């Protein structure tokens, strides 16, 4: 009985890892979307600062993506480590 329960948990693990990866993508999307919003509004206010704003936007996007990648790495661990 415990064996079948554990087998169920094994398969559920893969499904939950996939949901986790999806949530991570959603989080990254929202975060980077807000960065983009702030950057575009700032450029609209002051077009001369476009280069500085673009550089900061790309840098901040890389940092936010780092957080999303944490969740992806955990998902990969679930799938690939027995």
């Amino acid at each position, binding site marked *: 009985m415990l064996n079948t329960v554990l087998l169920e948990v094994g398969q559920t693990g893969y499904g939950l890892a996939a949901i986790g990866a999806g949530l991570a993508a959603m989080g990254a999307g929202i975060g980077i979307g807000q960065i983009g919003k702030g950057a575009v509004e700032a450029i609209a206010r002051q077009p001369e600062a476009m280069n500085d704003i673009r550089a900061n936007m790309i*840098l901040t996007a*890389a940092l936010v993506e*780092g957080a999303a*990648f944490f969740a*992806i*790495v955990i998902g990969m661990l679930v799938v*690939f480590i027995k």
Partner: protein
Amino acid sequence: MITATKTNLKYTLTALFLAVFAIFTASANPEESEKSEKFDAGKMIIEHITDGHEWHILGEDKGIVAIPLPVIIYSDKGLDVFSSGKFEHGTASYVGKYNYKLNETGEVVVVNDAQQIDEAATKKLWDFSITKNVASLLLSAFLLLYVFLTVAATYKRNPNVAPKGMQSFVEPIILFIRDDVAKNSIGPKYLKFMPYLLTVFFFILFNNLLGMIPVFPGGANLTGNIAVTMVLAVITFIIVTVNGNKHYWGHILAMPGVPKWVLIILTPIEIFGVFLRPSVLMIRLFANMLAGHIIPLALFALIFIFAAMNIGLGMGVSVLSVAFAVFMGLLELLVAFIQAYVFTLLSAIYFGAAVEEAHSHDESIV
């Protein structure tokens, strides 16, 4: 009249181009796919992103073309050096000081006469082999040395002459790191950290770019290997710890200007942060590069998965797959530069925090 024929020409050329593309990608014969085993996408992806004892160039099964790299094993019985060709791509075993064989994940294990893995003996092995990642590392180290020693020698020979050739490619990047990264983040003491920052930037950049080239000598997933990024993060951590001054450690262990009861919560969090920041550096670079490798591999695996169902479907998917993979490849090119820049920038920021002198704001605020 003229615009109509130009549009017609454009449409005909596009259709012709797509047809040629589709024909070339459909060269897999349907008979062969029934004879060989079913395509395993997971196995193909894992093979391409993990380390191995041979550098695979093309083909598989009978027609495989790969460079056998040396296997160097040190155990309690002594040193064994031999070519990984002796393993016959994982099928044969080699008798040195022990009876060696490759297991399913490509690692060297000890087997007994019945070809069963001997766990106790395997634990005694120290594997110092030149694997694919090590060979790629040596190649990129050689490339870095060649580029920068040449450029440095040119500067020393003609000190006040306008740069040309390789110099004019490398100089703006070095100045960018010195001015926008080091001086801004570290302040007046930036010169001490410049060698490390430049090295880590160009090392990560060269390895990221080499990993994107699909053919030998590129294509080894070095920066997507967590051991490599861990070493880089550990070196940053060591530099920060060694160069931390009293002001830095004071801020971590007993942040000035906060009530005593807050310190009970704050100090463990700060100490955790000291170890967390290099770990995040490690994971960020590793995950970005690993994802950058998995995406084109998954897209190409999709072609073969669909082709196994129906060869025409495979042809159609291949056009979309290749187009999407090219687009993602361009994005990954940008990511290669950005990740090298972010690693260097964050290392510089941590160095700056470590050597920062006390300001007047550290005293309690009104």
